[in-house]
């Protein structure tokens, strides 16, 4: 697992520049955390990069379990989800300091925003990682990638409504909603990881294909 994680971290470096740009956009006080949206794409992008380079095939000769191939991407995704949430909180804290102590909205709501950020990252990864394993890089796999990105739109609308206070949630309800969103993200993520472990075993185990390999 450590080896796969280290390899994924090396690949992660490719995405830092865009992630930082997306993070900088978060400082523009828009409700949608672009960093979260981009971070959700990264784990599956690493997997696609692995598939393109033939790492999945090559790693069959290494002494390790097949499941680490997928699990490592989930660990990266979880770390990115948390970083997006931390970023949201950091921006909020900065806003308070810059505006001399006046918060743009109550702290409970920012916790809900952070939970939604985690849901965006983990939700996108939870759909794209198993579909990359199941369908590969083309056809239906690419459709799911695009479709999953579209699925973030309702979350964005919800965040916008909360942000502009068109939906008015009192502090206590915001915290309850944050807890529900967070638990949903965790449940979705764990279920997806379990599915991906099964799929990666199939993906990496000896093939029963009748393709000619000579």
């Amino acid at each position, binding site marked *: 697992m450590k080896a796969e994680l280290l390899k994924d971290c090396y690949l992660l470096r490719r995405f830092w520049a865009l992630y930082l740009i997306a993070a900088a956009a978060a400082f523009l006080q828009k409700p949608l955390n672009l960093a979260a949206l981009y971070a959700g794409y990264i784990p599956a992008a690493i997997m696609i990069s692995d598939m393109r*380079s033939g790492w999945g095939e090559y790693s069959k000769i290494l002494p390790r379990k097949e499941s680490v191939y997928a699990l490592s991407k989930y660990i990266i995704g979880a770390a990115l989800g948390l970083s997006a949430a931390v970023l949201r909180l950091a921006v909020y804290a900065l806003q308070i300091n810059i505006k001399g102590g006046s918060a743009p909205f109550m702290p409970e709501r920012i916790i809900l925003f952070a939970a939604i950020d985690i849901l965006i990252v983990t939700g996108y990864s939870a759909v794209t990682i198993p579909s990359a394993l199941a369908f590969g890089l083309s056809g239906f796999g690419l459709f799911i990638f695009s479709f999953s990105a579209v699925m973030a739109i309702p979350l964005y609308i919800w965040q916008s409504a909360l942000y502009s206070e068109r939906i008015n949630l009192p502090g206590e309800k915001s915290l309850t909603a944050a807890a529900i969103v967070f638990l949903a993200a965790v449940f979705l993520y764990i279920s997806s990881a379990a599915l991906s472990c099964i799929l990666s075993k199939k993906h990496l185990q*000896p093939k029963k294909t009748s393709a000619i390999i000579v």
Partner: protein
Amino acid sequence: MNAIEIKNLTKIYNDFSLDNLSLTLPSGCIMGLIGENGAGKSTTIKLILDMINRDGGEIKVLGRDNKKDFNIIKEDIGVVPDEIGLPEYMNAYQVGKVMKLCYKNWSDEKYGALIEKLGLPMKKKFKEFSKGMKMKLGIAIALSHDPKLLILDEATSGLDPVIRDEVVGMFMEFTRDENHSILISSHIVSDLEKICDYIAFLHKGRLMLCEEKDVLKDEYSFVRGTREQILSIPDENSIGKKFTPYGGEAIVRRDSVPDGLEAGVVDIEQLFIFMVRKEGETEK
């Protein structure tokens, strides 16, 4: 102990099948798998490494069943596949760090020395490597974790002659330890002839011959003569015959060289070509 034992190995595809293959690679030896494109060399290697499912037979690697205990055995096997699928955005230094976490016996010193010996850059991205450089990196990885068995699929192809010679030397050095063995497939028969103790000929998924190289060289001779002289050699005494406008050539059993013809030393490439040609004529 045998490094590899294969019994009645069968793999069936739509238009190709590996047919009842049995061979044994004793410890401390180098076996060369020779065969034309599509003969089944890579299929055999993939089956040994359990990368594809077999339809029948049994494979033991370093004394263990390759289906049941393969994760344990992998620590002791160095593999250089025909495609080195390392991540494109990593360099040799990063690859070394990753492999160190994969293998218990990984040696940074050995890896560093091999990278230097093979003239590879430490900081260049893998995607910028030439095919030969990729192969060299694969060889460095395979040798840096103290394996007992090396499995090489066309590992010397893509290398220039000087480096190829150096790599072949490294393989010979590797088998100086009597517990070390190598299974190598290559199109470049001259490389195999240099290093192999055993030669296995594969043709259309069938093992035509598996024998000690020295026995093959002792047993057969290459003869050249007039068309009539070559035609006079009984078929059962020859591996194959070839005719040109100037006469003919044949590979015959050393004890059956006709009078008046000089017995020359046979090389493995000639032997293989004549065998395949004879097989083709028989099929017709």
